[in-house]
Every structure is written in structure tokens, then in C-alpha cells.
């Protein structure tokens, strides 16, 4: 057993070194609000996901897409079938050619992926001073720090660039953005949205909610993954203990 523990420690050392090696070196350390889905038993808070969706749908989605999430998936954040139809129908998408070969626009349906605000990336960049607002489907996995990065970024704007820093036209200063000059202006102000559940919409609250929603968008399987993991681990713990007992029994005469 001593050898086993030693092996575990060696392996842990290997990971620690690789983990350090992979971590990016950033400037300002990220804020960490402590999200509900962190830790061994952590799960998404559905009420928070729904609030986050409200912010996304009313604010973020004016510039950002969410092309990997289908409207039907929104039942997981607590939308009813009727609400999903309503949200989907708010935007139009090109239909398949009809029998005359004419392509017309139709309202979105629950089976569609979330319809973005712009017909293509060029149009999106042109409407945003040349900077393409990135699709947010995987944002919580595609940045070092994930949801903490989103949470920090949304609150990391300074009214003025620090002394001596010259910002290009149309850029804002953000403490957490690589290079600090970000195309997106500050977004979150008190009562920017009115939450259906009556929660006070402070910038901090909205930043946390949108981070939660985007984390769900990137890892919709998280709840299912962790709950399956728990069952698998309990099984394996019992199974491995039995194997160990059997091993002891079989090896009794050798040792």
C-alpha cells in the first residue's frame, strides 16, 4: 500500500507540473464569486440559469450568437414549451426553397439553433466597428478561468484608461481582457433587465447570472455528468474494495 500511495503522489506531481505548465499567465487575477456548480456535489441553480438566459436574450444576443444551443435545449434552464416557442419565433431564419424555388424567411422554431443577430461574420464585424463579437456557446470553456473570466470581464471596465495608456478609437479599457483594449463597451448597469423572479438586477448579480448561463451553454451535461459520476464512484469503491479483499485472500500463502 505504501508503494501505491507513493505512486499516487508521483502521479499527482506529474499533473501539478503539467497544470502549472498549462495555466496562462494573465495580468489581473480573476474574481471568483464561487459558483453553485463547483465542487464535488455542485449543480446548476436553475433559477440562476433562467435569470442568466433573460440577460443573454435581452442584452448579449443583440451582438453575440449562441449557435450551438438549440431553443429546445432551453427547457433545461426552466423555460416552458410555450415560452420556448415564443423565444424561437422572435427571430427569422432563411427557410428551405419552396416548390417554386423561392427562399423566404420564416420564424424560428424550437428545433432551430439559437438564431444569431447577424446574417454572417462580416456583417457582425461591420456593425461593431470591425471587431467580431464572438459566439458565446463555448465561451465558458474557451478562456482560461472560464466562468470566472466572464464574471470578471463583465465587471472589469474602467471609466477611463489608466494614465499613459492610449486606447484606439471605439475601444474600452478592461482590466481582464488580454491587451486591455476591448471592442465591447461596458454593458451592465443597475436594472438593465427586469428579472421575472423579482431579483434585484445589480451589475454583480447579472454578471454572475450570465456566467452561469454561459457555463450551462458550454457544458449542458454537467448535472448529469456529476450525478452519474457519483454513482459510478460508489460502485467502483465497493467493487475495488472487494477485489482487494479477494487479492488478500488469494495471496495469503505467498506473503
Amino acid at each position: 500500500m505504501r508503494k501505491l500511495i507513493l505512486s499516487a503522489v508521483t502521479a499527482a506531481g506529474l499533473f501539478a507540473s503539467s497544470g502549472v505548465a498549462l495555466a496562462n499567465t494573465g495580468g489581473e487575477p480573476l474574481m471568483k464569486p464561487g459558483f453553485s456548480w463547483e465542487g464535488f456535489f455542485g449543480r446548476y441553480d436553475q433559477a440562476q440559469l433562467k435569470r442568466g438566459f433573460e440577460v443573454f436574450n435581452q442584452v448579449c444576443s443583440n451582438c453575440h450568437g449562441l449557435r450551438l444551443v438549440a431553443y429546445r435545449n432551453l427547457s433545461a434552464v426552466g423555460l416552458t414549451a410555450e415560452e420556448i416557442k415564443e423565444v424561437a419565433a422572435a427571430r427569422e431564419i432563411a427557410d428551405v426553397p419552396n416548390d417554386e424555388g423561392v427562399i423566404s424567411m420564416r420564424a424560428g422554431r424550437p428545433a432551430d439553433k439559437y438564431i444569431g443577430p447577424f446574417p454572417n461574420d462580416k456583417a457582425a464585424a461591420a456593425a461593431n466597428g470591425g471587431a467580431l463579437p464572438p459566439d458565446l456557446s463555448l465561451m465558458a470553456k474557451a478562456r482560461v478561468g472560464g466562468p470566472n473570466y466572464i464574471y470578471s470581464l463583465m465587471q472589469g471596465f474602467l471609466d477611463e484608461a489608466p494614465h499613459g495608456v492610449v486606447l484606439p478609437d471605439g475601444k474600452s479599457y478592461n482590466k481582464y481582457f488580454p491587451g486591455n483594449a476591448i471592442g465591447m463597451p461596458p454593458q451592465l448597469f443597475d436594472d438593465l433587465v427586469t428579472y421575472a423572479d423579482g431579483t434585484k438586477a445589480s451589475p454583480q448579480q447579472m454578471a454572475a447570472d450570465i456566467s452561469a448561463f454561459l457555463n450551462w451553454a458550454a457544458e449542458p451535461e454537467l448535472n448529469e455528468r456529476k450525478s452519474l459520476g457519483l454513482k459510478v464512484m460508489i460502485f467502483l469503491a465497493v467493487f475495488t474494495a472487494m477485489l482487494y479483499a479477494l487479492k488478500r485472500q488469494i495471496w495469503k500463502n505467498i506473503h
Partner: protein
Amino acid sequence: MSGFQTNNKVISWLDERLPIFSMMQHSAIEYPTPRNLNYWWNFGSLAAFVLVVMLLTGIFLVMNYSSHTSLAFDSVERIMRDVNYGWLIRYLHMNGASMFFILVYIHMFRNLYYGSYKAPREVLWWVGIIIYLAMMATGFLGYVLPWGQMSFWGATVITNLFSAFPVVGQSIVTLLWGGFSVDNPTLNRFFSLHYLLPFVIVGLVVVHVWALHTVRSNNPLGVEMKGEADSIPFHPYYTIKDLFGIGLFLMFFLAFVFWAPNFFGEPDNYIPANPMVTPPHIVPEWYYLPFYAILRSFTMDLWIIPAKLQGVVAMFAAILILFFLPWLDTSKVRSAKFRPIYRQFFWLFLVDCLVLGYVGGKPAEEPLVTIGQLGTAYYFAHFLIIMPLLGKLEKPKPLPASISAAVLKEKA
């Protein structure tokens, strides 16, 4: 092939014509194994187990993957979101690759510690190195398939290494790419080879086990089995011990799959590949980092040899030098247990590899460049200077007369 007997007429009919049952009896049940193997000897069977996991999960992933540049990224996301338990299969495959390398690295360092590469196990060791090379190729090819930013730029950087070779370099790169940049033909041939190579590895594993069963296992004492008292049959002793190891390993492996599935990954690979945007810091997968550090530690052109070529040659040499280890190590004693000075150099070498791995994952800035260069120098010095000299200078401790003698002495 003596011990196999059965009353079942069908089985004995078959066995007389194709002796699979006799063979299993001979090589998986009666196979004499040293009685003193410790848990470090579990890692070979664990690696074989992970190979099977990788093959199975890989086959199911392919059923839903599209190897076209315009579809690859989204097809992986479809697996993650819409395929039943697709997220589980993909995370098993993704983390399984890292697990495979962790297990194989432990397996290799165990081999270095106990001197298992020495006569008569040189060919067994060679086949192992070839498996490792095939794994590195497979891992690299597989990392390109999701077609994220790190897939694309990793592929660009690594394939470009071959351009360092004079005269033929650029032609090799064009051949690898199937064109003049990393693009759809590259992805297609990488996918094809990523599916092929694991089966090559399976074949190599068969040869590895064949060689093993010819020369038998080394053991922590490093003295050969001499009589019946030194060995025990593989079954049930090592079948149960290996199964117990698999249980422990699965808990370790699945902890990552279920709770930290992206621990070994790079966030950049969740951004679709974009040839127009270079990530600020391109790193290969963690298991290549020590070699990446060796590659980058050559920074000065020498006469007509450019730094890049030196680095590439050094990187390949760092692996190929392992083939010569059985002769570079001049000591007659296998196990570090009886080599007090080698034992310390073994740990130094392990630390050196970890330091190189750390340096390989960081941007090339001082003081890391110098540390990487020192680490590289030490890496080669370990094989070319320390190992040959140590065998001559070191005075090993006395070896036990036999395995059973040592085991009985320990018990008393």
C-alpha cells in the same frame, strides 16, 4: 503446452486443430511470474486496458465524427450535446489519451529504476519504445481532429519541424499536409492515420507480450528466477492483482472524466480553427512538453547548421537514445535497489524530465530558456556520461542468491 486438459469433446476437438486453449493455459494461467513483483508492475496491464478503452470509445466517436474542416468542430460539439452519452464517450477518449501517457511514463520509469532493459530484455525494451513512438504519433494526430485553434496551430508547428531537414524537408511537409498549408487534406489523412495507428499499436503490444513471455518478467530484485520457489503462476495471483489495479486506476481516471474533464486540455481548443488568427502561446499536449523544451533549447545557429535543425535532431535523438540504453548502462546489476548511487541519479533524471516538461509549457523567456538548456544538457549527459561511467565506478551492494532467498529473509 502441457497443462491443458478437458473432458469437453468440442473444446478438445478444436484445441487439437488450433491450440488456443492450450496457449491460454500456457501463457495466461500457468505462465511463471516472479513472486515478488510490486505494484509498479501493474502499469503494463493498465496501459493495455486503456488501449482497449481508447479503441472502443474511438470506434463509437468515429460513428458521429466528420473529418471535413467545415464540419469537424461542430460534429464534435454535436457528440457532446446531442449524441446519447456522447459527452461521456468523448471525455473518456480525451482523458484516456492523457491516462495512457501517464501509465506508460510510469511503466518506463519503473523500467529505468529496475534496469529491466538489460540483457536479455533489450528487444522487449525496443518494442516498448516503438509503441511509445506510435503512441506519440497517434496522440498528435488525434489532437488535430476536433479542429480547434490548438489543433490547427499545433499541427502547423509540429509538421513544420520536418522542414528543418535540408533538401527533403519542404517536400516532407508538403506530403504531410497534402497541399501547401494545413487544410482539409491534412485533416483527412490525419484522421485516416489516427484510426490506423492504434491497430498497429495492438500488433506491437502482441509482439511486446511475446518478447516478455520469452524472457519473462524482471522483478524488483533484478535477479532472474532460478527455480520453482521463485515463481508463482500468473493466474490467479497476478490476474487478481491486475484487476485490483484496474479498479484503483478507474477511480483515478473517472475522477477526471466526471469532475475535471478539461483539466488536461487547452481552452483554445474550444475555439474553432482559424488560419487567420494565431494564438499568443502555442503549446503541444502535456505529454510532449519535455521534448518540446529540448527542441526549443537550441537557439544559436552553428556554422551551417541552423538552430531549428539542431533542435529537431536533438528532439528525435532524445527518444532514439533510449534504444541504446542497454549498452550505455554498463552496470551488470539491474535493480537500483542494489545501486545506491544510480538510485540518486535516477531521481535526478526524473526531476530533470519534470523540469523540462514545465519549461516546455511556458513561453520561451529567461530564465526558463537557460533552465531548459541546462535541463537538455543534463538529459543527454545522463545517458551519455553518467550511465556509462556509473557502471564502472559504482560499487553495487551484494545481490541475494535468489528471489525466494530474499523474500524469506525479509519475512524472518
